[in-house]
């Protein structure tokens, strides 16, 4: 359920980058002052372990399908929440870099969705409260499953929020939620089972490993959690209402602001005024007729629009623009490829020349 770049707006991506970046800085600071001096190599190797463990699957009883370890919970059990959050962030970063899982703009979203909830919510508030050091009991299994499910549900729900706030997908909120949550309920159960199986083995083979996170690090005070959640909720809410209700174009808005074409009287007015200007400009400049569906007049058929020579404030379609657009687009593609081939030839030549 990695969030993808193609589905989020820069505003949402940037916001989540800021939130995750802040959390990384906060956790890095906590880790730096940690008394466990072997923490840094431990974090690195355990991050590699999470990756490698995901190569190995187990069969899910009675379903014929298979699952693997997610990682957030077990990392928190071994390293404490701050270090575990950083490791999850690293795992997701490497996935984004090498497998294009998610993507760079969505990385902030993914770190928050998959790192924050297990480390700062599911583990301290659910798993630890349930298990109370009694690994391997049925209580521990139930605790692991509930914690994994809750962590993933929260993550999936924020995927929905982030996607909605971005306004690129047309999926209605309710449908999206109904689609995401059951899927992640199933994934959560599987992850909980995997986590409990591994933890109960470790508890038998080397119990001290699970107690290496000192109490002071393992117990997260609720305050940063609640503050983090509150900030995220407020920003997400704000972003959602701005960018979903108006036309989503954060960059153009900020460009208008930077270019100083507006005096911002009040923030609200400024945004709407600049957005209005942006709309005017996009209508004035040769641009595609494609606009969001709501703006298309019910009565207008494409043919009628094509016949209308005057560009409308929200021109639904203009045959001339379309043809030019399609031809231009295709030619640009061809040109880009040609340039690519030329550059490659040049790159080879230059390297050979140098070598």
């Amino acid at each position, binding site marked *: 359920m990695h969030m993808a*770049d*193609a589905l989020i707006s*820069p505003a949402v*991506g940037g916001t989540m980058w800021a939130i995750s970046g802040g959390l990384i800085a906060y956790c*890095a600071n906590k*880790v730096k002052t940690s008394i466990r001096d*072997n923490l*840094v190599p*431990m*974090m*690195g190797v355990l991050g*590699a*372990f999470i*990756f*490698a*463990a*995901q*190569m*190995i*699957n*187990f*069969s899910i009883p009675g379903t014929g399908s298979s699952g693997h*370890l997610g990682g957030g919970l077990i990392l928190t059990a071994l390293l404490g929440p701050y270090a575990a959050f*950083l490791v999850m962030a690293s795992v997701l*970063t*490497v996935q984004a*870099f*090498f497998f*294009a899982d998610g993507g*760079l*703009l969505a990385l902030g979203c993914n770190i928050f969705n998959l790192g924050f909830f297990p480390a700062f919510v599911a583990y301290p508030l659910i798993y630890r409260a349930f298990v109370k050091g009694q690994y391997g009991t049925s209580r521990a299994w139930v605790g692991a499953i509930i914690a994994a499910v809750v962590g993933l549900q929260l993550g999936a729900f924020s995927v929905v929020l982030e996607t909605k706030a971005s306004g690129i*997908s047309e999926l*209605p909120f309710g449908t999206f939620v109904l689609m995401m949550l059951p899927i992640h309920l199933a994934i959560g159960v599987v992850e909980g089972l*995997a986590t*409990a*199986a*591994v933890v109960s*083995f*470790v508890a038998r083979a080397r119990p001290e*490993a699970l107690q290496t996170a000192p109490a002071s690090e393992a117990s997260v005070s609720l305050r940063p959690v609640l503050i983090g959640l509150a900030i995220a909720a407020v920003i997400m809410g704000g972003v959602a209402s701005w960018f979903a209700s108006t*036309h*989503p174009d*954060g960059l153009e808005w900020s*460009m208008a602001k930077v270019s100083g074409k507006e005096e911002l009287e009040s923030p609200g007015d400024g945004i709407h005024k600049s957005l209005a200007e942006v709309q005017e400009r996009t209508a004035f400049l040769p*641009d595609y007729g*494609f606009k969001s*569906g709501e703006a298309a007049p019910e009565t207008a058929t494409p043919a009628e629009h094509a016949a209308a020579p005057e560009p409308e404030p929200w021109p639904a379609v203009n045959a001339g*623009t379309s043809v*030019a*657009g399609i*031809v*231009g*687009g295709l030619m*640009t593609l061809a*040109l*880009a490829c040609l*340039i690519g081939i030329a550059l*490659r030839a*040049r*790159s080879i030549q230059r390297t050979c020349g140098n070598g």
Partner: protein
Amino acid sequence: MGITDWIEIGRMDELGRMDTPAHRLDARAKAIVTLAFIVVVMSFPRHDVSALTPFLLYPIALISLGRIPVGYLARKILIAAPFALFIGIFNPLLDRTPVTTIGTVAISGGWVSFGSIMFRFFLTVGAALALVACTGMNRLGAALERLGVPRVFVVQLLFLYRYLFVVSDQAGKMKRSAEMRSSGRPLRLRVYGSMIGHLLLRSMDRAERVYRAMVARGFDGEVRVLRPSSFVWSDAIFVAGCLLFFVSARLWNLAEAFGRLLTGGAM
């Protein structure tokens, strides 16, 4: 992820260590430009397609200069596609307002925005993969630190990357020996738990030995590195040129202007 993904990471790592004009650019410059690229691409209204085409130039230039195999990268992009496809495919189903015609076929807004999503996906993922393939993890990590990411984070990120190759090798051996003894059936949960548990304990032992080796060479909690800066004027020109291009392509639909020039259709 499976074994095949694993081979992929090794391949990316190899590509990242080549020496080409694209690889010689400073990692920070490439990282900043790529991020700007993604932000600008994602800032387009959701029904734009043709205005996005000029942006193809950036990943293509990077891939070509870096001599990254195109087929390989395309395959990687396709493997990553399902989530965007899964969410994007709802657009044609939900937004059926016709917005344009090609010949006599009316195209709905949903299909246009779906096309736009997939095209953006292609662009953003392509650019990100091209960045990594032209830079490599180690140079990227150093760039992250220079750009202000906390050192502790960067150090353990690079440790993760370093030990990926070691731990996954162990995991691969365990998996193989388990498969040999189970005639290919997937593992039962209990067996899985002890196998992954073993891998975990061995990883923890490994970390302890690494720590020991660090201490033996004077590690005192602070990892010091010597990374001479390599940001030169050509990097600055690269950044400035790319940003200028992105902004122009964002403000004006270059593809359409190009098309009008070609079709002679003055509007």
